[in-house]
């Protein structure tokens, strides 16, 4: 008991008395540990964060009817097979040919709030329609009809002939809508008019039918494939298909990015750890005189090694704790600045960081101490 107390006293006293030198060592260990915990956290978080960026490309899965059309209930059914945390957006689409200024135009009835999530690349001049009564007009239609933001437009629809008396004239259904925004995508969407599904249902007088649903899911392509298979086989009305162009490319790019961060992490870590090791070696080497003195007054080699190692590892532990905190702060800052979202805290990284810094300092102390204990105390005390 007494012996152990003495041991701790010697270790702590040595750290306190040689304050400035030990601060230098502690600082270097803490930097190493910061880099370790910071980069590892980023490495594990990059796929999730980058994956979210890749959702910019829009839907990566579509539901098509296995025959005719499907309903909102089918979508909900299919949706239940996907982990809700993975879902970025689900947008139903129903296409109908309507007329504006007596010219035929393709209209897509959809949930425009969801469409913003599944097609984040849509660039809208004006406002994004929030409620019913307004629509989003494709840019080329806007030019063709000279209709701009704020204009009111009458959309008409000829109901299908439903077999009632033939000479009865069928009147067009019409609805007045405000152009809330003009849609620019550089793609075929510019030739469409987008309106709320409920408006389209009111216009056509038919409800419940959906032609297609776009899903944006943040998951890798294997997971997506298994979702698609499960949904296609379990939900009768749906045929789930992957948008290959998006999923394949995402996998390619994401794999490369993660490999890049991994390699960079490994290189940076290796170099930093060597830096920590050289600093520790320098700190220990300069205490050769002290080692010599202790040996001269009768300390055993084992005792000296134990004591110095204790000191080194205490430093390592302290540095590790400081480093884990700083590393997390760093990773958090990176995440907020780069991805503007906060990082997930991984508890496992803390013990790993502390263990690694203890191990690195331990090993880098051990070698110089061992060589120091092997020399003749008389020589060291005499000054080389």
């Amino acid at each position: 008991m007494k012996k152990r107390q003495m041991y701790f006293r010697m270790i702590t006293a040595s750290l306190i008395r040689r304050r400035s030198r030990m601060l230098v060592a502690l600082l270097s260990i803490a930097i190493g540990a910061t880099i370790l915990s910071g980069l590892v956290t980023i490495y594990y978080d990059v796929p999730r964060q980058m994956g979210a960026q890749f959702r910019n490309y829009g839907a990566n899965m579509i539901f098509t009817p296995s025959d005719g059309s499907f309903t909102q209930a089918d979508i909900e059914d299919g949706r239940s097979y996907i982990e809700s945390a993975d879902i970025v957006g689900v947008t139903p689409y129903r296409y109908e040919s309507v007329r504006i200024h007596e010219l035929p135009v393709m209209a897509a009835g959809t949930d425009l709030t969801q469409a913003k999530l599944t097609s984040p690349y849509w660039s809208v001049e004006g406002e994004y329609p929030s409620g019913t009564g307004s629509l989003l007009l494709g840019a080329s239609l806007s030019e063709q009809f000279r209709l701009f933001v704020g204009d009111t437009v009458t959309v008409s629809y000829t109901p299908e002939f439903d077999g009632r008396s033939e000479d009865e004239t069928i009147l067009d259904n019409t609805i007045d809508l405000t152009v809330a925004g003009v849609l620019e995508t550089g793609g075929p969407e510019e030739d469409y008019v987008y309106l709320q599904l409920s408006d389209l249902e009111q216009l056509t007088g038919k409800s419940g039918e959906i032609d297609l649903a776009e899903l944006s899911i943040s998951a890798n392509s294997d997971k997506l494939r298994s979702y698609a298979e499960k949904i296609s086989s379990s939900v009768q009305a749906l045929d789930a298909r992957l948008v290959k162009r998006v999923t394949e490319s995402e996998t390619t790019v994401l794999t490369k990015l993660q490999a890049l961060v991994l390699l960079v992490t490994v290189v940076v870590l290796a170099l930093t750890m060597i830096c920590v090791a050289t600093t520790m070696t320098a700190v220990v080497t300069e205490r050769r005189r002290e080692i010599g003195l202790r040996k001269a007054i009768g300390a055993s080699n084992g005792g000296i090694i134990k004591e110095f190692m204790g000191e080194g590892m205490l430093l390592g532990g302290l540095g590790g704790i400081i480093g884990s905190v700083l590393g997390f702060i760093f990773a958090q800052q990176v995440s907020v600045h780069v991805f503007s979202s906060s990082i997930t805290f991984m508890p496992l990284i803390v013990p790993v960081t502390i263990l690694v810094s203890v191990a690195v300092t331990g090993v880098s102390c051990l070698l110089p101490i061992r060589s120091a204990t092997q020399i003749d105390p008389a020589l060291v005390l005499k000054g080389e």
Partner: protein
Amino acid sequence: MFFRMIFGTLVRQWKKMLMIAFTIALGSSLATAMLSVMLDVGDKVNQELKTYGANITVMPKESSVLSSLYEVEDGGTSGAYLREDELGKIKTIFWAFNIVDYAPFINAKVTLDDGSETSAVGTWFNHHMELPTGEMLDAGVTSMRSWWEVTDGKWLDEQITGSRNVAMVGTALAQRLGLKSGDTFHVAGAASDMQLEVIGIFDAGGEEDDRIFMPVDTAQTLGGLDGKIDSIEVSAITTPENELAIKAAKDPKSLTISQYETWYCTAYASSICYQIQEVITDSVAAPVRQVADSEGAILEKTELLMMLITILSLIGAALGICNLVTASVMERSAEMGLMKAIGAQNASVSGLVLTEILLTAAVGGSVGFFAGWGFAQIIGQTVFGSAITMRPVVIPIVAVLVLLVTLAGCIPAIRMLLRLRPAEVLHGK
């Protein structure tokens, strides 16, 4: 005498100096590697993002309003076309070097033997071209449809097939017709009909699975559309858009002359589009927002991420070097004390220490620079399969960094040395 003393230290204390040089080398290699990777990562990731396909489409000005999203259209009836003979001009614009690949498309409606109609798409697969500038160029959809999976046969290559009537068939259509690679089938177009030989079956995971892809001439012959092109897809390396680019995209005429020059000479999607419109008669080139915007966002994020990691590792390297330099200079207090005891001036002692350390730093720094360049190449080869381009700007940055860091490491040590009282030091306090 000065040099002899320095030389003496370097030789006699070579172990200690080697350790300092080694740490500085590690630090500078880290800085070099991270800076080179950081500066090049944009280009590299941009190349990778090309797997998403074209980011610019070129259409005729009067293109049909009713071409449709889910391909219910009846195939190129609009009456407005681009001219095939102008295609080479795309490679002559100011930003030609940034155009990675491009391919024209021409749609022709064809009738199959079972009476069903489908769309025959003529395009370049691996088209060889001689430019007006005398350069040679191979372009085509092979790289712009990287997500296509060729399930049977192989990619069509018009340089191999020559003038044979060949085609690649989408998997859905092939299944319906029971076609395999090597089979021939009959199609009738608006102008003529012919037997097509199937070179490959592809799975595109979309509407293209129901179509037939063939060389441009073949589709033109089928549809009687000689020399006409529906659209061009261009895959270009672009700079993420900023406010200037957005303003310019709306109306280039709203810019001042100097803004216009900046915009024109920067590889924004909008300026490349503008330049393409200048060379292709009656065309409208527009960035494909889905690809162009996402590319910009991802690029920006990756660059920022790499920059922050680089800054962290630079700070780490700097502090590591600083530490070691301080520790190793302080260690020599006895020697310095002795020098002062026999009458050395403060200035000459500091000069001596500084010169020694800076010499060591120069050696360590240059060794580290080359090692770091090696690390960067390893990263480039492993991750992207291509070399990292060395930017000359890295050399001065690393040099200044090493110099500053080493000096910073020396300052506290030298201040301590100056405060030394020779008697105390020699007494061995």
